[in-house]
């Protein structure tokens, strides 16, 4: 069994490989050095049976009650159908950490939450209103993405990647295609890369708009919610008009994209940007001038720069805590390598900073898309897929709207996918939520959670 781990430093990536005996795979745990490695280790132990020596946390993570302790679904000899009990019982006996002390009580929340939101379990330990600790228990939307990837052809893998986390369909499809293209030596035309970036920035703007409104709504300021939802809806309708899908699903395919834009559409896009910018200038100005919002968002959900760095937080979570990492600037890929990208960074570390960071990122994306459209290459939007792809592997790195998306992919001897692992930035953001919530009041959890907005589906896989 070959195990890879990927480390990042100053924009360079280092991949380490270890060869283990399949009969009894064992590795020393890295969680005491890299705390964020904890869930990756437990994930691979539950799915592949790798034992980690000296692991600080030996509890199961992804495994609930659908398969037994000695079964490892991601191994090749485990059938896709498995042998799940019918019905699969609830995972009621997960051993949560106990917080003891006078007046400490627990609040169990989930997996079914009150709103229209993904499922997961949160266990709060609180005294009065104050949260002493939060422990997450995720894995509820595990649907076997890594197992289902095995045996797929590139087109079908791209479709699956587009559904790892629906809100990041462009980012994940792009990263998966990049990994496949690098593995196969497939040349992607310049215009295709430029339009991929355009789609990716559109996804960023749409999600940031939605989140800014939702953050304000979580502290009772519905005006912002309706304004942002309105702008997001217009934005999504333009997506449907130009690219055939409101969320841009399945637009990115191996080798390029599936749909070109016409010259006439460019003028429409540019005027859309100008309109949105004018709207947002006054709206953002207003939002940052409301004392009630400042009262609720400033100092709330404070994530220290040290924690953000230690957990490897990227995207708005890392950047709002002073961590200026962005794949587009630090490890640039086409077309971002042609431009200087200004990456907004804030030092506020709180919910307000994460909201303001999104505002800055929307402005930056609009400016960047204008540059891109002003200098769009001619030519085809899809390259030919090489015929002889066998036993090769590749990685893809994309800065999605949440942050760094990293994909590992290997093809078998027949050009079919043998292994696929998409690493969503939420792997780093969920542990950050546990840290930043400490000391906050229970009613502020929704707004803190929204300011981070981790993907459940993207990490449960």
């Amino acid at each position: 069994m070959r195990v890879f781990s990927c480390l990042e430093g100053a924009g360079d990536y280092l991949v380490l490989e270890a060869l283990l005996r399949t009969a009894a795979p064992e590795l020393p745990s890295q969680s005491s050095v890299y705390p964020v490695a904890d869930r990756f280790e437990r994930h691979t132990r539950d799915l592949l049976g790798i034992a980690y020596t000296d692991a600080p946390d030996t509890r199961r993570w992804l495994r609930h009650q659908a398969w037994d302790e000695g079964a490892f679904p991601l191994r090749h000899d485990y059938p896709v159908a498995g042998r799940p009990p019918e019905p699969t019982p609830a995972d009621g006996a997960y051993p949560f950490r106990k917080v003891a002390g006078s007046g400490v009580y627990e609040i169990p929340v989930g997996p079914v939450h009150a709103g229209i939101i993904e499922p997961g379990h949160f266990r709060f330990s609180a005294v009065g209103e104050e949260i002493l600790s939060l422990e997450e228990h995720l894995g509820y939307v595990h649907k076997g993405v890594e197992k289902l990837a095995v045996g797929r052809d590139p087109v079908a893998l791209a479709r699956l990647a587009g559904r790892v986390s629906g809100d990041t369909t462009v980012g994940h499809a792009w990263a998966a295609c990049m990994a496949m293209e690098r593995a196969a030596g497939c040349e992607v035309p310049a215009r295709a890369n430029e339009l991929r970036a355009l789609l990716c920035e559109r996804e960023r703007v749409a999600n940031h708009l939605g989140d800014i409104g939702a953050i304000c709504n979580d502290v009772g300021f519905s005006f912002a919610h309706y304004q942002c939802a309105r702008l997001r809806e217009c934005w999504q309708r333009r997506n449907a008009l130009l690219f055939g899908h409101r969320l841009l699903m399945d637009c990115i395919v191996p080798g390029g994209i599936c749909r070109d834009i016409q010259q006439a559409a460019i003028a429409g896009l540019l005027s859309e940007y100008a309109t949105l910018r004018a709207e947002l200038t006054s709206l953002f100005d207003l939002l940052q001038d409301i004392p009630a919002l400042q009262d609720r968002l400033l100092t709330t959900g404070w994530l220290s720069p040290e924690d953000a760095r230690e957990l490897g937080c990227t995207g708005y979570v890392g950047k709002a805590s002073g961590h200026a990492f962005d794949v587009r600037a630090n490890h640039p890929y086409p077309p971002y390598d042609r431009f200087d990208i200004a990456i907004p960074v804030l030092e506020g570390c709180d919910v307000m900073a994460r909201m303001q960071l999104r505002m800055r990122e929307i402005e930056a994306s609009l400016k960047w898309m204008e540059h891109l459209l002003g200098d769009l290459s001619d030519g085809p939007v899809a390259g030919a897929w090489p015929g002889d792809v066998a036993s090769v592997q590749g990685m893809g790195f994309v800065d999605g709207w949440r942050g760094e998306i990293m994909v590992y992919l290997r093809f078998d001897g027949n050009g079919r996918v043998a292994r696929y692992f998409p690493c969503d930035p939420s792997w780093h953001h969920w542990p950050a939520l546990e840290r930043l919530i400490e000391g906050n009041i229970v009613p502020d959890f929704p707004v803190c959670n929204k300011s981070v907005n981790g993907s459940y589906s993207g990490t449960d896989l």
Partner: protein
Amino acid sequence: MLRILNKTIRLGVLTEARPGSDNAELERLGIAVKRRVTRRFSGSLAIRAVDAGSCNACELEIHALNNPYHDIERFGVHFVASPRHADVLLVTGPVSRHMQTALIRTFEAMPAPRFVIAAGTCACTGGEFGVSYASCGAVGNVLPVDVEIPGCPPAPIHLLQGILALLRA
């Protein structure tokens, strides 16, 4: 405050007309169900949404039902936090094995008469994920489903048509 009022008044009402009722579409959704709902719920429908394993794209489009353009509440349709208050269970995603019992319990907590809408291709057929060690596939494999709204994800207008189908006589 004046700036907020100014913005609100200048924008005016954006809400769009209700979608046209395509007879074939209504037929497909089941006229019998609609008659029962209209009679028993007096045109007001409380929905409990449960993500049973979706990729979250369906949730984005369900959220869009509440935006100013669609404003689903004008039809008497509202989303509630507790299954005890709900007439309809709106389920997205293939049902993951890990969510199977939670989904069944949510359904059982609802007072009768109760209805289940499977929203999105995964909920209707299992979609990209199907049946596996980790997934039960379609919602219909776990609960009795009254209305199916396909789409990956279904656009708000299609969700609206599907939900309104339960209300129309």
